[in-house]
């Protein structure tokens, strides 16, 4: 059996929309002939482990590979090395006490997880958050989409041997860390949402800091694109590697950029809009070939679109209260709790007894940076959930990895795994 390697055409540029933004990633089918790089090592099969302790597995993923020479015959993923049973823990906690568990799942986009959880519980309780809270949460979620995509970009580039990109993206991530820290007091474990609102309102000057970040961020994206998009090594390692057809991607349950790279335009923000996403002007980039290169282009464009959404959200940020005016769920102001007996009793009861949810259930999903993030909360009327379930996008995306890499080369395993943008904290939960 001979190994295949594809000729790539480095001159095919992605189409740019007016204004230099890339709305679509047309990738021309390969015209060149495939040629053999080297002959296979005479069909000797072996079984090897990648991981669990390997930097390129982005955590503690373990892939058992059956190799025929350098070709992957079979891939069997093993997960669970980071299992902490968050869902079980959630059944022993008040609704508000679960928030810190959510950002420990996806520590690369913690605010999206905080918001998604709060939104699901609010839907169950029938709470409508204030206009200001909606916009603040949109800002949080789009900021963390950039945050997560930047990490994906940096680590994937490093996995494929491009070190410089990592330095560029982590410089920008550092600024988002600073924004996190100023808003929530923490850089990773933000725990910023509460049922019915946020832990605190935006601090003074935060929006100015965010604006400054956005102004300096887009040039960096362009710069990184000049490093990668037409880079012969990058193109050679990503085009036509790990591809999955749109039909297969839907059947395997892929979501997020991984699904859209295959040409299926399913984005929760567009298809089931929440928080007035239908009123924001933004595009959803859709790829064509479902390979790593298309996923890369989709994510690059998503970062630019997130900047667009962020700018619109900053423009429309209304003043007013960030928390709902509902004493059942929201704590009284600290000064009132310290000075007024009734408020103190109120504070005590909300903290000690928790917020009670009506009998019922709700399955609610948002578009996280990695795909569709679903939160399923079931209540029997108590202050704690009967069941709290997280449909983690990485968990379902990584399940498709054998489908993508069986028949590919060993070196492509690293590339495909990186391209799926997984986070093991959420896969293992």
């Amino acid at each position, binding site marked *: 059996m001979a190994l295949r390697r594809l000729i790539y055409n480095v001159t095919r540029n992605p189409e740019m929309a007016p204004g230099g933004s890339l709305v679509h990633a047309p990738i021309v089918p390969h015209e060149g002939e495939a040629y053999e790089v080297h002959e296979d090592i005479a069909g000797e*099969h*072996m*079984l*090897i*482990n990648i*991981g669990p302790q*390997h*930097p*390129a*597995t*982005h*955590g503690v993923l*373990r892939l*058992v590979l*059956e190799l025929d020479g350098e070709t992957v015959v079979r891939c*069997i993923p093993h997960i*669970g090395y980071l*299992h902490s*049973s968050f869902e*079980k*823990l959630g*059944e*022993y906690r008040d609704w508000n006490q679960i928030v810190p568990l959510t950002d420990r799942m996806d520590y690369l986009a913690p605010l999206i997880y905080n918001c998604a959880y709060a939104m699901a519980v609010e839907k169950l309780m*029938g709470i409508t958050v204030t206009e200001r809270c909606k916009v603040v949460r949109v800002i949080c979620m789009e900021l963390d989409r950039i945050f997560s995509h930047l*990490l*994906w970009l*940096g*680590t994937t580039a*490093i*996995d494929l041997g491009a070190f410089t990109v*990592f330095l560029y993206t982590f410089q920008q991530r550092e600024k988002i860390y600073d924004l996190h820290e100023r808003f929530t007091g923490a850089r990773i474990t933000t725990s910023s949402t509460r049922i019915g609102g946020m832990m605190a309102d935006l601090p003074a000057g935060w929006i100015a800091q965010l604006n400054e970040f956005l102004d300096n961020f887009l040039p960096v994206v362009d710069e990184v694109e000049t490093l990668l998009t037409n880079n012969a090594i990058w193109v050679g390692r990503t085009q036509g590697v790990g591809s999955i057809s749109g039909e*297969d991607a*839907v*059947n*395997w*349950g892929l979501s997020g950029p991984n699904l859209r790279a295959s040409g299926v335009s*399913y984005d929760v923000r567009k*298809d*089931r809009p929440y928080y007035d996403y239908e009123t924001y002007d933004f595009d959803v980039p859709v790829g064509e070939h479902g390979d790593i290169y298309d996923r890369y282009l989709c994510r690059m464009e998503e970062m630019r679109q997130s900047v667009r959404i962020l700018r619109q959200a900053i423009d429309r940020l209304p003043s007013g209260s960030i928390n709902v005016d509902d004493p059942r769920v929201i704590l009284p102001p600290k000064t009132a709790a310290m000075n007024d007996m009734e408020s103190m009793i109120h504070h005590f009861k909300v903290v000690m007894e928790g917020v009670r949810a009506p*009998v*019922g*259930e*709700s*399955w609610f*999903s948002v578009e996280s940076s990695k795909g*569709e993030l*679903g939160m*399923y909360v079931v209540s*029997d*009327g*108590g202050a*704690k959930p*009967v*069941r709290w*379930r997280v*449909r983690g996008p990485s968990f*379902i995306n990584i*399940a*498709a990895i054998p*489908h993508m890499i069986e028949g590919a080369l060993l070196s492509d395993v690293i590339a495909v795994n990186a391209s799926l943008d997984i986070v093991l904290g959420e896969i293992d939960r």
Partner: protein
Amino acid sequence: MSESDSFRKGLEGLDQGPRPSDAGDDATPPQAGALPPHPSVDALRQRFGDAVLRHEVVAGDEHIVYVPAARNLEILGWLKDEPAHRYDFLQDLTAVDYGGGREIQVVYQLWSIPNRLNLRVKCELPLQALEIDSVFHLWRASDWLEREVYDMFGVVFRGHPDLRRILMPYNYAEGHPLRKDFPLRGRFSRAEQTRRALAMKTEDHYSPMELEIAHVLGQSVPDPFDQGEAGGSPQGQFGGMGGAG
């Protein structure tokens, strides 16, 4: 002394599980008077008649259909393939245990990309017969989801090609953690849990299929935690940085 007593009391509280609800035994949400219509539910009623056991609307706009567990494959297959409905995207497959010996619900959360419509289908399984047909051949997405439900709730999916534990170790002997009768700290003492973790053999890290492959290849399975000669310097190539994810 009193401090340690209250501390111990807190720990006991942990083992009692979630606070019992005021709702009593009936944990199902109340039926709304006039339910908003859902095209697929009406079609299901027409096509399958009595197989639609219940129809509920929760949280404002979420439709739930209860179907008999024995007919899940038939009904879900119809929902997926019928051109007018086409629930081609399995968003989620999970289970809910309400505790108190009640049935375990298997929950299918469906989304139709062409029709932009949600539907939740539930099957109730009595604790004595936790078996249901696998939907693996309808949606490949259900592969790991069913394994997770098996691992966490002990529901057996008939026809799943590779039903084994996914999050817990293969030789985990304490049961199914998300069941309500499973204590938060596990069934075994901490000492026993530690002893078992330390006593794991190389083979315990592999599924039966992998052991068979290794046997056919005439190879012994490599230890995934061996940092010895095979370890070499795996960090060197990546500078140890790629693990940031």
